[in-house]
């Protein structure tokens, strides 16, 4: 039974989201903290260093950590106010059980009783329907230790193949493309290489709002003479002053990359030595892009031919460069192809593996990198290993003390797990660090699937929109209540340090997972005493793999302010820059710089296909979605932090004045967005900074304010990332405010 126990209003009234502001100790001046804890931000992939001020087991504020090399004390508004997620009135301090008779639909119960109930239900479902009928969802905000443990719990404890994580909606397209082209899934360069680049190409990345601290690297590069090219359907804050803005029509990125490569070949802006020595597949690709003339490229992308030529010339003739992309090109049914297109123009230029010559996807989540390396992904084992590779299975099985036959085979992505629920193949679900009801597309389907589950347990620190559907909610830990490692977007492994203890019955997530295993009588291999013990096993499990952590220790991380993986031995300093001349790796074994048996990078033909749902007469407007600077992902944390809510209270629809005037829409007016899957009514913000064929809505809100009621669940065939960045809608302004406009606070 995973339907809402009562209507959502009483649940919201008791469990929030409510806004927390500074009060008490946190508002007093001149309070001497008991300690300052050096750790990192709990939000995005930048993982800025920050010092938390702790007094009486409460985080009361922050002090910049200027010595940490990446951000040198810099923070965005989320980092500044993150401490307000602690000591929050909405914090889950007890375990809860679904109870329609209770006032807010949930009744508190003793923690141990809740664990027993979870174990009984897992046992019942698995013994009735088989091991794969129980699924596990994780997330990329978990520390790497937790992600590793969750993978081991699912595969060794539950023996289910159905484990996947919310990174599926984040960076998997880039990960798949990186593996296809380079044989390794990691940003190729540290961010410091941006400063040395002559041309910086930013494709589909709203850096100022999603990765604010990276802005300083861009601006500093420009002071050093760099030219900045921004490809985006919106004039984002970095696009406003960039050197060349390419206003691409959403969903057409691969056409642009193919067009650029066409011109690079035509003008011979190629590094022939590099292509001959270090790559394979160029001839086939060159043949493929022949048809991508500037004219065709312009027709498909909506960018002028002149701008395409200028971009190609700048990129083609540069001596050094850095290409970055993020979800803007990745959230597509051809997301992998888009990323391959980007990599193709990098490889053709030969500008990789050297100082000031770089390529990176900008991972979105705090542990987006580390959380995808060590085994909570459906097809992967620790060390970036492949679950279908016999040698890889044997290695991990040995570390875990089981036979390879006992390891389940590959599972399916999170969205496909929901389809398995639809088909009755999955009956129970354990969820942590994930709010799929807000963050997955076509959320009406997700709600119906949660309702179909026989048993749903979620571990969370707040009652998220998804948790409201749970049979049991277990009180987990906040970022500042546990320790462990994460890998930032540049591949730097850093350490999160605990600042305070868990309040009430809440406890560290790794304890909860192990408590469930023990109650099931399946605690073998799941009896770690602390995160360090998990990490020590993870080091062994990753040894010899591509994501080799075996030479990393907590002490080395602290001493070096982070260690870039791979780091295969105790005396190894880590690898800030991949693919350097003379570098070696366990796959090429000295044959070359790239992670293939011949040591050579792969060019991949990346054919253009239009989005899954293109506009037509019925639904003539493109809807694209993204973030705002003061909110993070599904807003479970940031919609509870008062000053961040006040900065941007509710989602607005960005509409160009030309489109608005065609529909008679005025600034601030209620506008209904209608698509094939659902509707969403929000206020209009009329701005000249967006293409007139496109509207933009940020996705951080739930319920009637969730734009994912409208987005499409079409997925990339390789990476399984959903196409958040393009679907077809129409906009209407004659319906007035939606039913939820009254009675809810902006964040609810």
């Amino acid at each position, binding site marked *: 039974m995973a339907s809402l126990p009562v209507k959502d209003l009483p649940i919201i009234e008791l469990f929030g989201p409510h806004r927390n502001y500074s009060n008490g100790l946190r508002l007093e001046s001149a309070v001497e903290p008991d300690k300052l804890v050096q750790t990192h931000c709990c939000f995005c992939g930048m993982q800025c260093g920050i010092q938390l001020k702790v007094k009486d087991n409460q985080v009361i504020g922050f002090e910049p950590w200027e010595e940490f090399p990446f951000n040198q004390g*810099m923070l965005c508004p989320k980092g*500044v106010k993150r401490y307000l997620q602690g000591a929050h009135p909405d914090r889950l301090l007890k375990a809860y059980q679904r109870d329609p008779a209770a006032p807010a639909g949930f009744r508190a119960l003793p923690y141990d009783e809740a664990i027993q109930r979870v174990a009984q239900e897992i046992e019942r479902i698995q013994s009735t329907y088989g091991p794969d009928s129980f699924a596990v969802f994780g997330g990329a905000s978990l520390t790497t230790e937790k992600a590793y443990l969750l993978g081991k719990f699912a595969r060794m404890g539950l023996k289910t193949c159905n484990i996947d994580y919310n990174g599926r909606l984040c960076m998997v397209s880039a990960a798949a493309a990186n593996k296809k082209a380079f044989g390794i899934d990691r940003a190729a360069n540290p961010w410091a290489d941006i400063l040395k680049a002559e041309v910086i190409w930013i494709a589909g990345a709203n850096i100022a*709002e999603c990765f604010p601290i990276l*802005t300083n690297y861009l601006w*500093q590069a420009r002071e050093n003479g760099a030219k900045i090219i921004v490809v985006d359907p919106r004039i984002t804050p970095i696009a406003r002053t960039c050197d060349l803005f390419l206003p691409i029509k959403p969903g057409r990125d691969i056409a642009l990359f193919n067009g650029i490569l066409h011109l690079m070949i035509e003008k011979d802006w190629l590094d022939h030595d590099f292509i001959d020595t270090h790559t394979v597949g160029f001839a086939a690709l060159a043949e493929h892009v022949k048809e991508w003339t500037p004219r065709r490229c312009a027709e498909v992308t909506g960018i002028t*031919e002149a701008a395409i030529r200028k971009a190609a010339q700048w990129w083609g003739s540069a001596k050094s460069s850095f290409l970055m992309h993020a979800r803007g090109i990745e959230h597509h049914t051809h997301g992998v192809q888009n990323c391959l297109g980007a990599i193709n123009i990098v490889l053709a230029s030969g500008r990789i593996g050297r100082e000031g010559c770089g390529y990176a996807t900008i991972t979105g989540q705090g542990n987006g990198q580390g959380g995808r390396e060590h085994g909570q992904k459906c097809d992967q084992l620790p060390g970036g290993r492949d679950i279908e590779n016999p040698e890889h299975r044997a290695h991990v099985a040995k570390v875990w003390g089981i036979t390879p036959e006992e390891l389940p085979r590959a599972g399916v992505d999170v969205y496909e797990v929901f389809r398995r629920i639809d088909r009755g193949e999955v009956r129970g679900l354990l969820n942590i660090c994930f709010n799929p009801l807000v963050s997955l597309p076509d959320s009406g389907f997700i709600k119906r699937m949660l309702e179909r589950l026989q048993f749903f347990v979620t571990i969370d620190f707040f009652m998220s929109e998804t948790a409201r559907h749970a049979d049991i909610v277990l009180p987990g830990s906040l970022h500042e209540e546990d320790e462990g490692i994460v890998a930032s977007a540049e591949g730097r492994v850093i350490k999160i340090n605990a600042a305070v203890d868990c309040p009430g019955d809440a406890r560290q997530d790794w304890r909860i997972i192990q408590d469930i295993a023990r109650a099931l009588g399946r605690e073998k291999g799941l009896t770690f005493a602390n995160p360090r013990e998990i990490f020590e096993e993870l080091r062994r499990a990753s040894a010899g793999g591509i994501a080799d952590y075996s030479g990393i220790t907590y002490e080395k991380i602290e001493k070096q302010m982070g260690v870039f993986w791979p780091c295969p031995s105790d005396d190894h300093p880590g690898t800030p820059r991949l693919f350097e001349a003379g570098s070696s790796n366990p796959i090429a074994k000295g044959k070359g710089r790239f992670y293939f048996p011949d040591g050579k990078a792969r060019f991949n033909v990346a054919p253009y296909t239009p989005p899954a749902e293109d506009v037509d007469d019925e639904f003539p407007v493109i809807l694209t979605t993204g973030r705002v600077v003061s909110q993070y992902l599904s807003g479970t944390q940031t919609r509870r932090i008062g000053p961040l809510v006040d900065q941007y209270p509710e989602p607005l629809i960005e509409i160009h*004045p030309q489109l608005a005037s065609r529909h008679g829409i005025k600034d601030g007016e209620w506008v209904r967005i209608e698509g094939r899957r659902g509707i969403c009514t929000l206020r209009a913000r009329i701005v*000249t*900074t967006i*293409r007139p064929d496109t509207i933009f809505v940020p996705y951080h809100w739930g319920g009637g304010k969730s734009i994912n009621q409208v987005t499409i669940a079409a997925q990339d065939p390789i990476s399984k990332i959903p196409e958040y960045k393009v679907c077809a809608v129409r906009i209407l302004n004659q319906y007035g405010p939606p039913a939820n406009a009254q009675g809810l606070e902006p964040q609810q």
Partner: protein
Amino acid sequence: MFLLDQNEFFIDPARCIGCQACVQACSECDTHKGHAMIHLEYVDRGQSTQTVPVVCMHCESPTCAEVCPADAIKKTEDGVVQSARKPRCVACNNCVLACPFGVPKMITDFELMMKCDLCYDRTSAGKKPMCATVCPSGALFYGPRPEIDQLRPRSKPMNQFQFGRQTITTKVHMMAPTGPVKAQYLDVTEVMNENGPRQRIALDILSNLYASEDGV
């Protein structure tokens, strides 16, 4: 760590991304917790994402102090103009109306004018102001002159401003571009077709000012 008198405050609006980290961090400052003293506003969000952060410019002859009937606004020896002294401030709003940069705020709960004091508690202890420490874009910068000269070869600090017939010299500097200023991207439709008009909003005001300052 630099000595206080070696460090100066520089504002570079061209770098601002409007993220409000400065505003949020300002409200964490110990002397005015819960109240931000920074103004950060869109110039016109309908037309552009341009935002401008405004901290107190700490004038040599502060207009706010000059118009204060209660003599409540004081400047420290090192040139920092402080919030009104609580025992003296009569909450008359003169300073709020007179400041050419629009800096002081009347905090009605306290019946007190409050403004940016350059994080006096931090800067006097050798730390940077909160806003300039956290600013992710370098739009707010606090450090020694040689460092900003080296970091920002494309602009120069200026600290003289003309308001009508009033010339104001400030302790805080604005970074003004030294070369020609590229037009900003304001409307997507201007770059969507080959011959589209391109609005040229050159920051002539700043470069002219810099030129005339050069001529003096």
